[in-house]
């Protein structure tokens, strides 16, 4: 079920009503039932994996809790983690394996489609398991209550990845949502719909027509497609998260923020702190810290100091760990060479930036550019956008070859004449679409600038005259209905079959 569909929104309204009318002690059961219903809508087959994951992590946590620290406990953790991540990799890599071994395995894997939201609930339950192992909190003994933590429906499709110690108590508390939280929830949902329906869906039309055949377009069109893909991805993903958080608000639950104005990042590292925050912090707490603080890495670092000197030697274990993190994030996106390269690309950029830091600082001092001047800020901002955009070309292309064609076009044949000849009107979008997108993007950027400066657009509106607020409400609903999802697409038949 799509978040931006009337069916889902109707479902949410029903769940909100039932939740509000149910006695406090039973509210968590309503949430669990709603989550089960949501998953049932999405297909029975997918639920099998969810149940499997829930049961083994539940049992694993109980077992870990009983065991004394030691090798045996470590082995238990390893086995359970292997089972859940093994499950994930079966689905993620079946296609990749088919690419490498186009034989029996390939034909078998053809039937496997990634079950809905599988990686999000796997990360969430793995985090829980590791926390129990580390003794951070007690395991949940009630399997139904635990199942709710794994399967809470708003976040199951695309996160945010929650932590047991902050999420589970909220889910079980059954707080009655206040009028404020309903209002916030509705506003968040509308904001998310705005991003998805007005911006992302429109951008997607152009993006897919350009990326489906990169050889047919010039460099200018390709750059525009890459830029719009960044916008599309951000609006689609963060819009979805806004809807998720809005739905949860109406159930009296506040979920973690997953984005912090990523377009204002001043470095690649900064970008990854602002993009998909909950995945980043999951990776930090469960992969990066354990690796870089492990004895193995420590010993390795000390031996490296002798080779490269203290500064670099100290950095090496952390760099290696962050490299591994990006590699993991890369393959988590999907089993394909392009994602592996994507992981390396980001890992290299961050490592490179750390190693070359003294060089940059030297250059900056030599050029007498102020540390926190506006110029430097803008340069950093643009540089980051370009680097991120380049990575996106790689991930959006069909394969590495497609991405290479696109890069080549960008650098060797911009084809500005094509643009003057109306190339942009032949990519599935009308002039009206471009105007709507530009206006919506302006609104988005203004709101992001306000956020970035610590201002809240919502409280700004709340201080206006009630009549104005009502007007705004009507306008917002009308804009969503009228400009949302009118993606008729480009149907060549209409062009060919119409009489003259």
């Amino acid at each position: 079920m799509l978040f931006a569909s009337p069916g889902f929104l109707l479902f949410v309204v029903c769940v909100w009503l039932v939740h509000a009318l149910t006695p406090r002690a039973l509210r968590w059961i309503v949430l669990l039932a709603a989550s089960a219903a949501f998953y049932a809508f999405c297909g029975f087959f997918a639920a099998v994996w969810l149940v499997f994951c829930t049961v083994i992590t539940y049992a694993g946590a109980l077992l870990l809790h009983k065991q004394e620290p030691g090798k045996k406990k470590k082995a238990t953790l390893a086995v359970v983690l292997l089972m859940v991540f093994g499950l994930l990799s079966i689905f993620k890599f079946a296609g990749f394996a088919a690419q490498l071994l186009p034989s029996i395995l390939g034909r078998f894997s053809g039937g496997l489609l990634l079950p809905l939201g599988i990686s999000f609930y796997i990360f969430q339950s793995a985090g829980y398991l590791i926390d129990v192992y580390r003794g951070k909190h007690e395991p949940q003994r009630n399997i139904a209550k635990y199942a709710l933590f794994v399967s809470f429906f708003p976040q199951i499709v695309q996160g945010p990845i929650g932590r047991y110690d902050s999420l589970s108590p909220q889910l079980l508390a059954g707080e009655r949502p206040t009028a404020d939280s309903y209002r916030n929830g509705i506003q968040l949902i509308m904001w998310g719909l705005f991003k998805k329906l007005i911006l992302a869906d429109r951008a997607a039309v152009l993006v897919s027509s350009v990326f489906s055949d990169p050889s047919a377009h010039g460099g200018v069109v390709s750059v525009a497609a890459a830029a719009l893909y960044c916008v599309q991805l951000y609006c689609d993903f963060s819009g979805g998260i806004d809807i998720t958080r809005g739905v949860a608000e109406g159930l009296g639950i506040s979920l973690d923020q997953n984005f912090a104005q990523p377009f204002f990042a001043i470095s690649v590292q900064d970008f990854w702190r602002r993009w998909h925050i909950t995945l980043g912090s999951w990776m930090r707490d469960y992969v990066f810290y354990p690796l870089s603080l492990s004895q193995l890495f420590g010993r390795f670092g000390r031996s490296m100091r002798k080779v490269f000197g203290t500064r670099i030697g100290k950095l090496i274990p952390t760099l290696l760990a962050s490299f591994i993190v990006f590699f993991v994030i890369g393959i988590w996106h999907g089993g394909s060479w392009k994602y592996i390269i994507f992981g390396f690309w980001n890992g290299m950029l961050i490592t490179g930036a750390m190693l070359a830091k003294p060089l940059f600082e030297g250059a900056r001092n030599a050029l007498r550019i102020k540390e926190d001047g506006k110029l430097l800020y803008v340069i950093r901002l643009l540089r980051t956008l370009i680097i991120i955009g380049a990575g996106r070309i790689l991930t959006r292309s069909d394969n590495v070859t497609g991405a290479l064609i696109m890069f080549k076009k960008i650098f060797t044949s911009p084809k500005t004449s094509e643009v003057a000849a109306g190339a942009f009107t032949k990519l599935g979008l009308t002039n009206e679409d471009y105007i709507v997108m530009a206006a919506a993007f302006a609104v988005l950027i203004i709101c992001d600038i306000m956020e970035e400066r610590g201002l809240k657009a919502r409280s700004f509106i709340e201080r206006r005259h009630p009549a104005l607020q009502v007007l705004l409400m009507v306008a917002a609903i009308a804009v969503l209905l009228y400009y949302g999802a009118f993606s008729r697409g480009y149907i060549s038949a209409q062009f060919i079959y119409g009489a003259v």
Partner: protein
Amino acid sequence: MDKLLAILADIRPDVDFTAETKLVTEGILDSFDIVALVADLNAAFNIAIGLTDLVPENFDSAEAMDSLINRKLT
């Protein structure tokens, strides 16, 4: 405390550690700094800061770090 501030200054000479109280929450110290810091603290004070201690509350200010060290020493 002075020993701690010296270590901190060594890692990030550009930060005034006596004044800041939201070092991690506001992103002044990133995960790379934390790793370097933990390695140095463990070595300097001969303590074992574990993975469960790596929460923002323990590293948001020099004071918080100091109390973490003291807890680990006892």
